[in-house]
């Protein structure tokens, strides 16, 4: 159990049955007055932001979150299926819950699935993933238009900007934290 003294940015607590992440925190105590603990929290399931002010004496339950290594298996409509490597148990996640992570999910990719009780609420990806370019325009040698990047589509369907020398069929490294091109996989 947490008390108000534990409140800080990054703390994960359970509120009204949902897991919340404290994203901003301010300790306020006007002269001789009662201390107020002002927080802004994000619901880890639906992303809504909530402002709450607490007073000393209030307590919180930690959010019971668990991360398990799972392999991404396949997608059906907007449902993504993952399998626990240890138990072979499968979980299904909605595209909406995955957020931007869906752009980098290639079959057999190992990810950390965050579970709230039995419910999967998100995934953490490796910082870098390798994906093959399936579509991009040919770079015309001598192009003087000054463009130093061009759009490319990778095998997950994600579109990003890449340097002009990247060709269709090449494997590139993408930084999953910002979704940007990082480098080309040599060989």
């Amino acid at each position: 159990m947490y008390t108000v003294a534990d409140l800080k940015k990054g703390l994960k607590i359970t509120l009204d049955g949902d897991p919340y992440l404290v994203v901003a925190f301010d300790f306020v105590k006007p002269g001789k007055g009662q201390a107020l603990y002002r927080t802004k929290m994000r619901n880890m399931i639906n992303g809504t932001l909530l402002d709450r002010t607490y007073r000393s004496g209030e307590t919180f339950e930690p959010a019971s979150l668990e991360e398990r290594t799972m392999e991404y298996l396949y997608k059906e409509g907007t449902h993504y299926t993952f399998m626990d490597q240890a138990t072979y148990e499968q979980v299904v996640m909605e595209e909406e819950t995955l957020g931007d992570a869906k752009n980098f999910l290639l079959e057999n990719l190992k990810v950390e699935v965050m579970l709230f009780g039995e419910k999967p609420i998100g995934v953490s990806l490796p910082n870098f993933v390798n994906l093959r370019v399936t579509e991009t325009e040919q770079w015309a040698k001598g192009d003087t238009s000054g463009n130093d990047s061009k759009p490319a589509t990778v095998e997950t369907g994600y579109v990003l900007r890449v340097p002009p020398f990247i060709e269709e069929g090449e494997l590139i490294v993408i930084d999953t934290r910002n979704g940007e091109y990082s480098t080309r996989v040599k060989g």
Partner: protein
Amino acid sequence: MNHDALWLRANIIRAIRSFFWDRGFLEVETPLLVPANAPEEYIDPVMAPPWQLQTSPEICMKRLLCRGHENLFQISRCWRSNERGVRHLSEFTMLEWYRADSDYRNLMADCRQLLQHVAAVCLTGSPVYRYKTRRIDPFAPWSTISVQEAFLRFANHSVWDCLQKGLYEEILTETIEPALADFPSPVMLVDYPAELAALSRLKPGQADLAERFELYVGGLELANGFSELNDPQEQRRRFVEANRLRLQEGRSALPLPERFLDELGYMPPSAGIALGIDRLVMLAVGTDSIDQVVAFTPEQL
């Protein structure tokens, strides 16, 4: 804390010392480890069994007033348990000064002169304080607003209603303090409801108000001053009441400073004030965070 901020902090402390020395105040050092502080509803001392660290030097400084010392100041460390935030440290540096045969109006005049002196001596480039994009000029005319008027004007509520409904702290910090930030010079919030008197004297002929004021600079609370209560029976009653409220909220009752209560009847009509030096340095540096004005935060130890 960067090199410049360390120098500015040292310079401000030197300027404060010379300000009070030049005015004939006696600089004192009273013990930091004490058997009892003034029990307050919402201040928890750091315990050092069987004693405790001071939450303020007020008890010992007032005992010096009782012994006939007239104008006193002290710069000392104070400790308050579980106070940590962007404007709070559990261990912080406090300036307190006391004047015999004075009331809170004398302290307001001191505040104005002190903030002007510190700005003139330490902020040589541009003698203004800064807080959250605001510039606060200590040389422009200062404002004085009563607590009642501030609640009516800025929040459209009676302060008495807010106290009764337990909304006082919320309204003060969410509405009043931001409104005080809009003033181009420091503001004195004066005449607190008697419920919030703490160790202050009630206003003669107006028993529902206390002669207490708080100094705000750019919306940041910097100092709290009183015309001091010197009636030992009334002071004991308030301490007992503070302990009763503490117990009601599940906090422990605190020991009473008995020797202080024994001697309080000998204190001349006096005025005393506490000013947070870390916050004054914040205003001089122009930072929002107290972390930027101390050599080490507790988290860095």
